[in-house]
């Protein structure tokens, strides 16, 4: 922008008709709002303290100085053009109007109220703004042509406060009423320059300051809300991207899970564990459906009192299907032992009775109760010894598991943990290697638990007769279904 040219002071006659621009000059501050208080500023220039008007003034000045103030460039303007841009810095902290020295001179030359000129001289004395051809105030005020610059001009500023400025006869306390016609009008026009609040309160300077503060606060609030909006929009954008990523990942994992379920792909990546768990869950769900179907067939067969041979077919189908789940569990244990141990593939009530990744084989016989009666003597002995041996095996495995947990915690709490928390890296790595080996042992234990369950089932089948075995299988299956139904009811219960 051009530097401010000082002392462009064309001589001109300060006639009322020529003095002021014909077209209203609508100044906009850099935020696009019209600040009416510029006019007000002008009225209070001589009281303006250094800091108070600065903000307002700087906007004022910067807008004042924008090159688009073409109206001032017209020859119609008696005053020189404020075509240079005054940076707000140039304007400093003083009153922001540009006062033309020449204008002042002009004023001085005129017979008129010394006060008016005094005001301008005060502005000059404030000294930090450059003077240019004519005062903005004078430019702003259409002193010359009342008709041309009617109320509408001020109204165009959008401030209703000034709507009735022309009616205001309030004078600034610091200004004397100019008896001279020219300046009288000027004075009158100065009225609207006075802060509307001062008109209301009668204390011009304080009202002006308040208005300025209010405007400043408005600006701040507007700026803050813009920043907030920007931040919100950015947040929305990132959330959108994240959502798309999650959807993609979900789709990918589902695809991989179905692939693993069909035995087509197996990889060692991080997804393998997730896939193993997912694959097992899917297989288990499928297994459960098939199991229900076979059990229903068996039930129908039992209820229709078929012969033993036909029952045997159904029983063998169910038993073979049990072998299938143990095979699936072996695969699942190898791919994700913690998922099997967690029992998340079971319903909550089933999980409650879980032991080492499955049902307790010693509970199996308790479930049967008297469903398999009448039992012969050898059968009874066999059932009792089966109960006892499964219990012993369970206890042995439980103790081994506890020892494993103990040694794992001992490994992890060994001397690497010091008060400083730092240890030998080699020690740490060794510690982790040992712990990894111990975790690998966990897979063996879970597998042994499944083997125990499978053995118990088969032994039971061997002890019982066909019909007893059929009733036993039905009883076991009903028990499990009731547990699952209980889980559903529990999760659906109304919570207060």
């Amino acid at each position, binding site marked *: 922008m051009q530097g401010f040219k000082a002392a462009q002071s064309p001589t001109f006659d300060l006639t009322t008709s020529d003095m002021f621009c014909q077209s209203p000059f609508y100044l906009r501050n850099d935020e696009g709002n019209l600040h009416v208080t510029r006019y007000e500023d002008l009225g209070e220039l001589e009281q303006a303290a250094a800091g108070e008007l600065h903000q307002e003034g700087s906007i004022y000045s910067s807008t004042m100085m924008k090159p688009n103030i073409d109206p001032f460039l017209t020859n119609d303007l008696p005053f020189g053009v404020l075509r240079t841009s005054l940076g707000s810095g140039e304007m400093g902290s003083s009153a922001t109007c540009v006062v033309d020295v020449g204008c002042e001179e002009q004023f001085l030359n005129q017979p008129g109220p010394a006060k008016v000129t005094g005001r301008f001289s005060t502005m000059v004395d404030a000294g930090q703004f450059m003077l240019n051809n004519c005062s903005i105030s004078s430019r702003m005020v259409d002193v010359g042509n009342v008709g041309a610059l009617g109320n509408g001009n001020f109204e165009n500023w959008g401030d209703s406060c000034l709507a009735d400025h022309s009616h205001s006869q309030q004078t600034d306390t610091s200004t004397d009423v100019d008896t001279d016609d020219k300046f009288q009008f000027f004075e009158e026009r100065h009225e609207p320059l006075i802060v509307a609040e001062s008109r209301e309160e009668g204390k011009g300077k304080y009202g002006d300051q308040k208005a300025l503060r209010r405007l400043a606060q408005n600006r701040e609030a507007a700026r803050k809300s813009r920043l907030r909006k920007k931040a919100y929009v950015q947040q929305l954008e990132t959330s959108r991207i994240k959502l798309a990523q999650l959807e993609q990942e979900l789709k990918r994992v589902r695809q991989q899970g179905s692939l693993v379920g069909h035995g087509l792909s197996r990889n060692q990546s991080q997804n393998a564990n997730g896939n193993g768990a997912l694959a097992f869950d899917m297989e288990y769900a499928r297994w459960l459906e098939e199991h229900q179907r076979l059990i229903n067939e068996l039930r129908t067969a039992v209820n229709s009192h078929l012969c033993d041979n036909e029952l045997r077919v159904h029983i063998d189908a169910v038993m073979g299907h049990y072998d299938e789940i143990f095979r699936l569990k072996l695969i699942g244990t190898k791919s994700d032992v913690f998922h099997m141990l967690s029992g998340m593939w079971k319903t909550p009530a089933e999980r409650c009775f879980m032991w080492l990744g499955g049902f307790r084989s010693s509970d199996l016989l308790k479930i049967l109760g008297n469903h398999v009666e009448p039992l012969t003597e050898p059968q009874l002995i*066999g059932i009792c*010894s*089966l109960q006892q*041996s*499964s219990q*012993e*095996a369970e*206890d*042995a*495995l439980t*103790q*081994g*598991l506890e*020892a*494993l947990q103990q*040694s794992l915690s001992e490994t992890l709490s060994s001397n690497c943990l010091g008060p400083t928390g730092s240890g030998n890296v080699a020690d740490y790595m060794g510690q982790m290697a040992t712990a990894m*080996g*111990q975790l*690998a*042992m966990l897979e*063996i*234990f879970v597998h*042994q638990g499944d*083997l*125990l369950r499978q*053995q*118990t089932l*088969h*032994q039971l089948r*061997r002890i019982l007769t066909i019909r007893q075995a059929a009733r036993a299988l039905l009883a076991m299956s009903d028990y499990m279904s009731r547990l699952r139904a209980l889980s559903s009811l529990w999760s659906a219960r109304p919570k207060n």
Partner: protein
Amino acid sequence: MHYQTDSSSWNSYMSQKTNITNGTDPFQHIQEIASQNAVVIFSISSCCMCLSMTRLFCGMGVNPMVYDLDEDPIRGQEMELALMGVLGKSCSPSIVPVVFIGGKLVGGMDRVMASHINGSLVPLLKQAGALWL
């Protein structure tokens, strides 16, 4: 389960080996140790499954002899390898525990548990003199 040889072939193998007097033969050594007690468990001191097996026998009222292969620095590894060769299964994470009852090879944890569930373990123990009930 997946043993290449079962206890009978082990025993026939051992009977073929009686001519060998070399005391450092691992198989021989294993046999010697297994003969020292009715129930001998070859284990490794840090193995928790070996502990399970020991507790299983103790819970049945049997007093097994536990031989830790890692406590024999000279021949422990040889014996471990020999056992691996005999049992023929994958040794992850380890071949032990291996049980000999009455000097005869029974097998690992899964074999022991299966025989216990199907009721064949107790008669075997009684036969070996480990149980008197």
